[in-house]
């Protein structure tokens, strides 16, 4: 069977039946993106490697949970990677709270993710008002909950929720506009 010719959805079905070569094909197709996302959020090569391993093993164990009708596989697996990376960021914060010596590690992760916008999605993120952009950074890139963000920024929780919604809609509009420019 030529695995590299199969669609992601076909490969996940094979993985669900225990086909290791299908998992290898999915790895070849998506591991770099998963690793990049984890590295971007965590700023640490080895932590990103662990997250990637964790994500691929999760695909191996739970590929039956993937529903091709609901999302593209690339989105599904990136979502898992983001969740894992956010979990790791929260663990770091918890450890740092228990041991102030690890503040350095947290600061590195924070400043690293802050630099992302400049590189790849800067045009879309730059269009966001500053207060909207901050909630995206703190939520998506640094893994804070909306309740924590509300306290950090000293803004009512309702305002944070509204700004998150507005930020995502502005980003979506930007994506749509970009797609139309391409067409």
């Amino acid at each position: 069977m030529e695995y590299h010719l199969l669609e992601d959805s076909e490969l996940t079905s094979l993985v669900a039946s225990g086909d290791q070569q299908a998992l290898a094909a999915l790895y070849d197709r998506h591991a770099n993106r998963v690793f990049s996302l984890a590295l971007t959020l965590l700023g640490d090569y080895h932590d990103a490697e662990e997250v990637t391993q964790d994500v691929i093993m999760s695909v191996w164990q739970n590929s039956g949970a993937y529903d091709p009708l609901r999302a593209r596989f690339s989105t599904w697996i990136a979502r898992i990677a983001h969740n894992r990376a956010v979990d790791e960021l929260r663990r770091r914060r918890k450890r740092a709270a228990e041991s102030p010596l690890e503040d350095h590690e947290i600061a590195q992760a924070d400043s690293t993710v802050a630099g992302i916008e400049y590189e790849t999605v800067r045009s879309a993120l730059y269009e966001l008002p500053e207060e909207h952009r901050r909630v995206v950074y703190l939520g998506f890139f640094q893994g804070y909950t909306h309740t924590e963000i509300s306290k950090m920024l000293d803004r009512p929780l309702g305002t944070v929720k509204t700004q998150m919604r507005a930020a995502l809609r502005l980003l979506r509009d930007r994506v749509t506009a970009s797609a139309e420019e391409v067409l």
Partner: protein
Amino acid sequence: MKCEEAGELIHAYLLGALDEDERRGLEAHVRGCPDCLAVYYEESQSMEMLLRVGDPVPAPLGLRKRILDMVNASARPAMRPGLIGGPLALLRSALRQPVAATAMAVVSITLVVLSGGAVLLWQEVNELKDEDSRLSANLQDQLDQIQEENERLAQTIVNQLDLAYLASMEGVSTVMLEGGDSAPKSTGMLMLSPNATWGVLLTLGLESLPRDKVYQLWLMSNNIRTSAGTFKVDSAGQGQLMVQGLGDLRDFENLEVSIEPAEGSPEASGANVLKGPMVIDGSQ
């Protein structure tokens, strides 16, 4: 959970900004609510963009094999108790039988006759194994070097993102370093964030170091040296180091860079290659 509440939480969910209980509650509601599911799909388009941030960086060498080995190990069927020690147990059992014992004797004699040729073959196999081991060791060494380079490049990308972000901020200031006695032609610059709680050190003209050495940055105050991290330089002599977690960097009086063992050193022990006072050159 009601649809109104779910609608308020969906965007925080998409950003990964819900706590565990909220996340579970929302997922349970959306699974059973076609209207909220439709909202979720519509809003999730913007998330796809965020999930693709950052330049692609190759996953580490060896990770693929390690994962597939783990998968292979986890997929291997558990051995049934009745088969434990199978071949030996069967042999012992057979030797208790007279007919089987005779057959084993015939097999033994045949093995003795064949053993002369087998020894030669065995020696040849061993030589091939030795050669294979040597080739494997060389290959592993090359893979280690590639892996090391891969890690360095990945770290460089991360550092450059930090640098790009820093350069885009208003109120950035700089501190200049000049070459020390052992590297007079080298220069360095520490770019400080507006509140001086973090910065990026850039170096030029430093020599590439062997694998067992690194450059280490020291910040000094009241004759006390504090390590600010280690770094290497590329073939063009350019190096970068993120400096943070040390409070207000303006509180230090001097900076130095020295050559230290690969794991870093608790005290400066090697040649001093860069140095300078913590004099802020101004902000942009």
